[in-house]
């Protein structure tokens, strides 16, 4: 290795900007449905996924994420744009070269897509068979792949004899048998129950670390993103509307759609009737409802009692919860603040100064539930 001759701190790889594992540029894909309506499945999408990262694309069905992930191995051809995988443009390749590249990109599917006519071992052997790997080597690689996903003892079973989670493990083993550098997950856990979902997500994460994979996954569940992704892109109507580190997107969502997604996942709705039962503000007093997001360096400070002392406010905690996103803790709390209007404003400014996220909750939004 060249590291042996280079002096610490001057490794060539450290200064060079690493080439993205997947770089999609300005992808467009339009479908004309029956009739004359044009569906813009991809409307100028650009994304890049760094080597070794787990990148999530989240969106409702019809947002274009399924078309997007299929563009990475060109199961779906974009009308225009560029698809670079491991530094190489795929769009110009001929069929034979494209098939060769596809063997370096594993793919896992929502409905597993295993061959019912083949045993587990023969399913895992399929991509090797197609690539012309000799039978003897195929056998060792299949055993190796099945061991990775912990299904060695099911080698001789048929897919119909397996549970959903086991089927997806076979799907993962099959995707990894040709030793790809990239793994595409197309709603890989959407057909599984919550417990099995955790199991499969854990497995994908472990395999990423173990095999140095780059993972691109699409999902409609923010919980999946929260569980394993490093970065996330939110899609709506064929466009990426928000992108960033998972923790940042979760704690400081910029787009309303993202906020809705997050609210579904880290569920922070105030029970109906709660606000109606809150005491009314006294004479000369104002009442403000707000949501405080604790993230960043000041998230462990006793800000509530401090604010109460500093600004002479009464702070009524309506709800609160601590969660962990992408391994970082954060808290979310709904407060009712009582006090002089200008003092409340001053407290809000101070919260913002501390880097806490403040969102006012309109009274109507809660009562309207």
């Amino acid at each position: 290795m060249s590291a042996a001759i280079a002096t610490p701190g001057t490794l060539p790889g450290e200064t060079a900007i690493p080439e993205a594992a997947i770089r999609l540029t300005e992808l467009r894909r339009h479908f004309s449905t029956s009739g004359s309506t044009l569906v813009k499945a991809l409307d100028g999408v650009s994304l890049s996924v760094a080597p070794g990262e787990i990148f999530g694309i989240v969106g409702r069905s019809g947002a274009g994420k399924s078309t997007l992930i299929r563009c990475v191995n060109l199961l779906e051809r974009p009308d225009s744009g560029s698809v670079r995988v491991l530094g190489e443009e795929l769009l110009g390749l001929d069929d034979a070269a494209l098939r060769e590249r596809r063997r370096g990109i594993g793919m896992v599917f929502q409905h597993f897509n295993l061959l019912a006519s083949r045993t587990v071992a023969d399913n895992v052997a399929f991509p090797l068979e197609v690539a012309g790997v000799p039978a003897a080597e195929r056998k060792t690689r299949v055993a190796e792949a099945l061991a990775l996903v912990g299904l060695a003892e099911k080698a001789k079973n048929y897919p119909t004899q397996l549970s959903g989670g086991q089927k997806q493990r076979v799907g993962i083993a099959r995707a990894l048998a040709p030793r790809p550098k990239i793994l595409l997950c197309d709603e890989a856990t959407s057909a599984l129950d919550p417990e099995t979902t955790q199991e499969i997500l854990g497995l994908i994460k472990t395999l990423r670390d173990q095999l140095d994979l780059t993972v691109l996954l699409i999902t409609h569940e923010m919980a999946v993103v929260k569980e394993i992704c490093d970065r996330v892109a939110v899609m709506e109507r064929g466009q990426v509307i928000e992108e960033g580190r998972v923790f940042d997107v979760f704690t400081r969502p910029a787009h309303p759609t993202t906020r809705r997604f997050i609210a579904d996942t880290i569920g922070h709705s105030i029970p109906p009737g709660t606000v109606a039962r809150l005491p009314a503000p006294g004479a000369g007093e104002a009442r403000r409802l707000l949501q405080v997001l604790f993230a960043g360096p000041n998230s462990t400070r006793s800000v509530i009692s401090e604010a109460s002392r500093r600004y002479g406010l009464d702070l009524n905690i309506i709800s609160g919860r601590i969660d962990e996103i992408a391994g970082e803790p954060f808290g979310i709390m709904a407060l009712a603040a009582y006090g002089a209007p200008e003092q409340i404003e001053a407290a809000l400014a101070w919260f913002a100064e501390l880097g806490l996220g403040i969102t006012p909750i309109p009274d109507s939004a809660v009562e309207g539930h």
Partner: protein
Amino acid sequence: MIPWLNPALEQLFVDAAIETLTMVGGAAAVAILLGLPLALLLYATGPGGLAQNGLANRPLGLLVNAVRSTPFIILMVAIVPFTRLVAGTSIGTTAAIVPLALAATAFIARLFETAFREVDRGVIEAARAMGATRLQILVKVVVPEAMPGLIAAVTVTLVSLVGYSAMAGAVGGGGLGDLGIRFGYQRFMPEVMASVVVVLIVFVQGLQSLGDWIVRRIRRR
């Protein structure tokens, strides 16, 4: 063998049964051999297929439909010159196999095509994602995945062939159906007619049960 028939009739019965088996077996063998590639071609060139090609698909489809829409008794006499070319004669059991095989090929090709269409598109997509060629997808995915449907199609074709073969008497093909017509109907021998009907029912039942059993065996995996 059949107690109410005299030995001479019994011999006729055995010969006729062998002729039926020869015609049905021969025609089915040819139909499977020719129908499988034909069906793969129809499937692959069809709308949304792996090698979509209307220019190839439409004429093929038309040809298959033409054969299928011609009543068998007409088809049999209409293709006599072709039969003579292939079998050297247009009369007899062997000659009857030619029109039977032609009708059965068109029939089974459509049934096979339907079976191929029922293969989950997701599985085909997975094979594409793994870098399989179109030929590999057909041979390693579509055909094996469609196997239960293919076996069911063969069963239906065999049963239909038993029916068609009854008309082979028109070109001197012999067989159980012909025996029933000539002896049971034209010579007023109800016991022969009844025997033919019973034997054909048992024969068809046997085929169907065997086919179903194989399909169940494959599906259970």
